[in-house]
């Protein structure tokens, strides 16, 4: 059975751990992975794709040594393999120009500023993961307990 992953990219170990802890509620139906750099994330993306697994959501910091978070998301956005992957930028240090790029070129789905509110992060992740499942055409039922109910109802209503 293919797994659906949530990938968090953040260069500071402690911050990464906090993000992962905040998103722990999704673990079980979804799988959680942390990366400390864009390179590591790209390697993981390749690996998961090669296994036939899905990446439902990427939660990305912007300012990191090496490739920036926005650049990573731009590359993911161009990559047909991750067409339905949802992208959340989690940063306190993006400039105006970075933000414009993130919207126009990376087509990010959400922008959350650091320091973040746990509930807002969880709620937005919930919505994005729900959208991913329906966009990807996966069976929502096993994931139901951790999905955004409003989004599920709206998508199901649309099917008539």
């Amino acid at each position: 059975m293919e797994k659906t992953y949530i990938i968090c990219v953040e260069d500071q170990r402690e911050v990464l751990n906090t993000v992962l802890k905040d998103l722990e509620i999704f673990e079980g139906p979804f799988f959680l992975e942390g990366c400390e750099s864009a390179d590591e994330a790209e390697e993981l993306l390749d690996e998961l794709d090669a296994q036939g697994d899905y990446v439902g959501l990427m939660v990305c910091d912007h300012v990191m040594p090496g490739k920036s978070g926005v650049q990573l998301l731009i590359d993911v956005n161009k990559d047909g393999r991750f067409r339905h992957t949802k992208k959340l930028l989690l940063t306190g240090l993006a400039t105006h120009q970075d933000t414009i790029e993130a919207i126009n070129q990376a087509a990010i789905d959400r922008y959350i500023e650091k320091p973040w509110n746990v509930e807002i992060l969880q709620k937005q992740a919930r919505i994005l993961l729900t959208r991913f499942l329906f966009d990807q055409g996966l069976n929502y039922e096993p994931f139901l307990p951790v999905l955004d109910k409003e989004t599920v109802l709206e998508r199901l209503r649309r099917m008539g």
Partner: protein
Amino acid sequence: MKKKTHLGAWLKPGISVLIPLLIAFMPAEWLHIPGITPVEQRVLALFVLAALFWILEPIPIFATSVLIIVLELILISNAGLQPMRQDATGAALPNLIDYREIMGTFASPVILLFLGGFFLAMSAVKFRLDQSLAAVLLRPFGQKPKRLLLGIMAITAVFSMFMSNTATTAMMLAVLAPVLPLFEPGDRGRVAFVLGVPFAANIGGIGTPIGTPPNAIALKYLTGENTIGFGQWMSFGVPLVLVLLLGIWLLLTTLYPARTPALELKFKTRFLRTPKAYIVYATFVVTVLLWLTDFWHGMNSYVVSMIPVAVFLSFGIIGKEDLKNISWDVLWLVAGGIALGLALEKSGLATRLVTLIPFSGLSAMTVLAVAALVGLVMANFMSNTGTANLLLPIVAALGTSGLALESTGGIAGIILGVTLSISLGMSLPISTPPNALAHAGGDIQTSDMARAGVIIGLAGLGIVFALIMILSGTGFFN
């Protein structure tokens, strides 16, 4: 621990594949079914495979349906694998099924009837007819929780006669979501509201032939002199829905009375007034009217169901992208059931199995009671369509068993009774997708659902029996 889950992962597919293989390859005399032919033995193995796959779900239920169709084509069709078409001596086997007939199940009239229903529902949702209509229809019910619940349940039931039970539940639960927090803490009335929607959707499916897939499967077996038209179905379906709905409303308001004095539902939508929206409204009304007046214009419900398909495609109301969103899984799930029924009937296995049951001394009502109870129990634990797929071909074969069927108005009465009972299975979150949605909201416990659901199932069975008695007494089946 890890090893155990690994074993568990293989257990379901293992059992589901091994037992049918065993049946297919064991010497025929071990089966203790006198006179069974090689083709019948294969059909028996397929039937057991279908049952295990639909109950244990090692693969999605619609995939099982397609698997059945493909296995039938290979194993028991006249264009199947060469060695499967001859016996040990090389002579051609009798009773092989025409491959065109097996493939034809994908486009069987009842499948196209459902396709027409899907087109109506999809375009209604696309043009927000569902929400606008719900807003208008709910207004007269006011803000008192008890009456408002009746209104919500009535509208849910009516909508689910034409939309899928799942989509109807999704829409009404979404309408309900903003008002649930308005209940005072500890007010059990909230449970009544959250349960009322899925229950009404499950029940509403009974109302029309396109309300829920088991109805379609029943229509497949109600042929020849037993044919039931769209309007005829509604003539008993709608009153039955009304009675059940009132009963459920009384039950829920008694079990979970609301203390909150008033609730207000807010709708944002208004009726769209674009030319396309008007085409949708008009097509909806005309199609339903044509369904109800088949005796006058001569087109049966299957032919009528193709009209909205043509209209919506011609006017670009349903486009290429919408086509992809049609629930092909539901259509194929039903097609597999029809193919299974076809194999059971054409091979002669259904008739042979039925002769094995000692019916002497049993009345038709007893048989109906047993079959309906089996259907109700199965439907509580597995998909309603899967239950109908397995049960109805066997039930339909009872017509040839020599059982005295006067009391139920012939075999049609038993087929209908079982079909209606299947829609009464709603005591668990896994019973139906509407139940699962309501449970996922977190406002109710499984025990809340079970308590009301078991009462509805058992009382509902009684009401269905009464209906069949009334129908047969008034000569409906003649």
